[in-house]
């Protein structure tokens, strides 16, 4: 069943035993972040958290860890809660093939119920803002879907971007904003700033679970996130027109914030405990002036804890990073079997592939680094054979330990691009990248002694499925 808003998804999570309501009074800091931090340490099927009794607030409603487990990720895609990870990624990839599915425009968006404009805008009066990590520079909106348009082609629906970026609240009506240069909104901003113009944006908070997934997904520049949401939901994505910018925004959002990124201005922002498990340093970043806030009555504020992996963001962007890389690689190299890009948003990627000829796997690794997402991530690639499951890390480690001759199979390429947040980059934005070819050499690359491998018994695959069914039925 497709969910049209966050509230209906929270209902589903509760019915499935995947929502924990915390009714005792908690402190905004450090309790909210600490509780969400803890969900990443209590097992991979941790529940979402819902707080409505936060000290000093009268009507705060805060949802965290909504996507933060494999069970929740499966439910977001309308799959059974116990769907294995590899099957979730395969289902995701199969639905991709239905893209594009046109969205459905609706006029009765519930966020039209309340409005603040101009001098009356006060984000603190709408949102129960709070800090996540000790060293954060302030309070963040870190799970929004931000909508912007290409200033040189504003009517192009595909080039309208829906993306997730870190946003610091630096005033009652001001935000600091991080567009990573490789991301789509950075292209929009560059074009606007080259012309000396502000870039309008619509920031939508508390969205349906699939909008959040596509907003964090590395899609091609001219592919519509709304049309992908429709493919993943199995039903058109409901959208509405934002009143100030005229942008297409999710119908079901809790809050819609509209304003502009002020042209050619940078202001101190951060640090912020990032998905890399490290703080980014203080940087001078773009600034947003908020001109209008629309919101549901009693909005639910959805936030996400991130810090040392694994946290919610890893469950959120893990599968949605695997699938674009899989599709983009397979477009040219159908030998590619599977892609595991679930570690730190794909800074490290494991690819299983068949080989055409000697040296082929290394070429697949280089291609991964030159995909649109790879330009800013994919600093390390491990290639494994077609019969190795890249999601099965013990199998991957076996391939690494048994098949790699370091002098021939490890390739380091200096001074390539990476996002500035990568902690190992030097200088920020530049790194060396590495390919580890853990595939079996094939002719004319004749090396090693691989002629007598021990293979799984022919019946083992069927037995594995049978045992999994029996175990699932028992629980």
């Amino acid at each position, binding site marked *: 069943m497709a969910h049209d808003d966050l509230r209906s998804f929270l209902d589903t999570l509760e019915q499935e035993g995947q929502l924990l309501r915390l009714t005792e009074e908690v402190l905004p800091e450090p309790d909210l972040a600490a509780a969400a931090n803890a969900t990443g340490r209590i097992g991979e099927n941790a529940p979402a958290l819902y707080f409505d009794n936060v000290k000093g607030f009268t009507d705060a409603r805060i949802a965290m860890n909504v996507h933060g487990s494999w069970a929740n990720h499966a439910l977001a895609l309308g799959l059974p809660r116990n769907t294995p990870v590899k099957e979730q990624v395969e289902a995701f990839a199969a639905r991709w093939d239905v893209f594009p599915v046109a969205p459905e425009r609706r006029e009765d968006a519930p966020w039209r119920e309340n409005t603040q404009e101009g001098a009356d805008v006060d984000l603190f009066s709408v949102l129960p803002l709070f800090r996540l990590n000790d060293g954060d520079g302030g*309070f963040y909106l870190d799970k929004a879907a931000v909508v912007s348009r290409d200033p040189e082609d504003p009517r192009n629906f595909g080039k309208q971007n829906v993306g997730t970026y870190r946003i610091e609240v630096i005033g009652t009506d001001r935000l600091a904003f991080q567009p990573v240069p490789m991301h789509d909104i950075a292209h929009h901003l560059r074009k606007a700033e080259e012309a000396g113009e502000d870039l309008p944006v619509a920031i939508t908070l508390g969205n349906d679970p699939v909008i959040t997934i596509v907003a964090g997904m590395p899609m091609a520049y001219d592919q519509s996130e709304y049309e992908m949401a429709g493919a993943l939901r199995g039903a058109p994505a409901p959208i509405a027109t934002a009143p100030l910018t005229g942008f297409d925004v999710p119908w079901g959002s809790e809050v819609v914030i509209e304003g502009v990124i002020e042209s050619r201005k940078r202001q101190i922002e951060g640090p912020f405990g990032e998905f890399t498990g490290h703080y980014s340093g203080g940087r001078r970043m773009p600034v947003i002036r908020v001109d209008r806030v629309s919101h549901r009555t009693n909005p639910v504020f959805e936030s996400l804890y991130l810090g040392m992996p694994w946290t919610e963001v890893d469950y959120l962007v893990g599968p949605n990073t695997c699938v674009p890389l899989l599709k983009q690689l397979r477009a040219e190299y159908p030998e590619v079997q599977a892609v595991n890009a679930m570690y730190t948003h794909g800074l490290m990627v494991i690819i299983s592939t068949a080989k055409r000829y000697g040296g082929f796997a290394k070429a697949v690794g280089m291609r991964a680094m030159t995909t649109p997402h790879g330009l800013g991530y994919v600093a390390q690639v491990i290639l494994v054979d077609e019969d190795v499951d890249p999601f099965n890390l013990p199998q991957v480690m076996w391939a690494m330990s048994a098949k790699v001759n370091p002098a021939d199979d490890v390739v380091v390429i200096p001074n390539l691009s990476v996002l*500035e947040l990568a902690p190992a980059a030097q200088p920020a934005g530049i790194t060396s990248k590495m390919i580890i070819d853990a595939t079996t050499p094939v002719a004319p690359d004749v090396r090693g002694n691989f002629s007598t491998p021990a293979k799984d018994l022919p019946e083992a695959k069927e037995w594995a499925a049978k045992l999994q069914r029996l175990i699932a039925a028992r629980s």
Partner: protein
Amino acid sequence: MPLPDDPTICPRCAFETIDRLATSPVPGVWDVLQCRQCLYTWRTTEPARRTRRDAYPDQFKMTVADIENAIEVPAVPPLRRAG
């Protein structure tokens, strides 16, 4: 608004001009304060390691030079000439 009678200094950069961004909907529980120099923002009920200069971790402290010399992300591009 400025807090002229409040001795608070910024825990992060020691600047002495602090604004109040918000106050708790339940009166008297907390305020959200912000340094006008480095924009560090904190709630008065947070632990001392986030609210007091003497307890604030050294690795997160910031100087005027840190603020002025921080790299721009993304860099401001050159203006495009008409025609």
